[in-house]
């Protein structure tokens, strides 16, 4: 990690007793203004059912769920191609995927949601379904650690693909 530019090692994440600090993601620059979460759809079990044709037919594609007010502020419309870029506050590394936006009301304005299940790249039924949100999460100090703290909390920026 130090080789990647991290000057603070999060020893406090490895204590025997629970501790709390502000999430690492809050140190990301302000243009990474949205929190990414991934969630499980009711049709699927983890990532091992998207290749089942009967279920894949119901929800065939990955999509980014975004609050309609947030989307309007960013100029994103229903069905637009969007990029989602995550930022590692410690190393400055960014990771990016491209998907399609769906405007909803049940997601908080400061949060965006990607379905957990997609991302299989070999199976003929599932490989066209879209990217996995796991490609945007970081492991290592400050993010997912041995104590599973801070897990899957990452700041992202979302924009329309032009």
């Amino acid at each position, binding site marked *: 990690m130090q080789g990647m530019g991290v000057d603070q090692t999060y020893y406090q994440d490895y204590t025997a007793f629970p501790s709390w600090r502000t999430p690492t993601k809050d140190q990301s620059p302000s243009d990474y203004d949205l929190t990414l979460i991934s969630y499980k759809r009711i049709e699927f079990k983890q990532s091992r059912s998207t290749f089942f044709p009967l279920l894949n*037919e119901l929800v065939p594609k990955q999509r980014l769920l975004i609050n309609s007010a947030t989307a309007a502020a960013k100029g994103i419309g229903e069905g637009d191609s969007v990029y989602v870029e995550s930022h590692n506050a410690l190393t400055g590394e960014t990771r990016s995927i491209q998907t399609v936006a769906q405007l909803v*009301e049940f997601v908080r304005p400061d949060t965006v949601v990607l379905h957990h299940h997609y991302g299989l790249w070999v199976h003929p039924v599932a490989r066209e379904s879209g990217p996995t949100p796991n490609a945007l999460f970081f492991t290592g100090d400050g993010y997912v650690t041995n104590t599973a703290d801070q897990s899957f909390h990452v700041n992202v920026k979302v924009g329309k693909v032009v």
Partner: protein
Amino acid sequence: MVRYGMAIDLSRCMGCRACVEACKVENNTPRGVFWMWLFRFEEGRYPNSKIRYLSRPCQHCDNAPCTKVCPVGARFKRSDGLVLTDFERCIGCRYCEVACPYGVNYFNWKKPSKNQYYEWEEGLPYGNPDHELKYEERLVSGGNHFVGVMGKCTFCVHRVAKGLKPACVANCPVNVFSFGDLDDPESEVSQAIAKKEHFQLQIELGTKPKVYYLGTPLDPLKPRKALDTFGEEVNP
């Protein structure tokens, strides 16, 4: 005489679509054909939005408009109230699809072997043998007999004939559905309807549907948005 009907308790439904999949597996319907469909939509604006669900089987109307437009008598209503399609008579004119206000009719566009999720050379490797039987001397059950015929929900006529409940009813994990004789006040479905506030879809058209929805009627003034709206999605 029995008069089969269904009650769907919207306050219990969690939108898992087990009914949709149970129907597909039981009736061997082809890809993109949903005799049972579950609409998912959200009402209201953040932060006061609510996701709601609505199952939609065939309404098996007492005054079914689809039977009246069928030029060959393939779509008919049985004495026990089931509205069925005789697949051997159907000529595929799709008039019933136009006449139905609920959108429950699905045309079989492809050969059965070419549209059952994978393409098979000859015949199908699986299928429900009950669909080869005739009920009241007509071929009415099953969703994948011939290309070019119209199919729709049969209330699982092959299961009802055995005294079983339709597949969607039997498979629901949270007992949303009640099925039985509407004319018998002691039946499960009559009791369910009697106990709760209920509504029916588009009764102003005079179709007299036999599917009752338990719960508050949808408020037409609330903003409402479907959650499954993508073009790629096979959505009726």
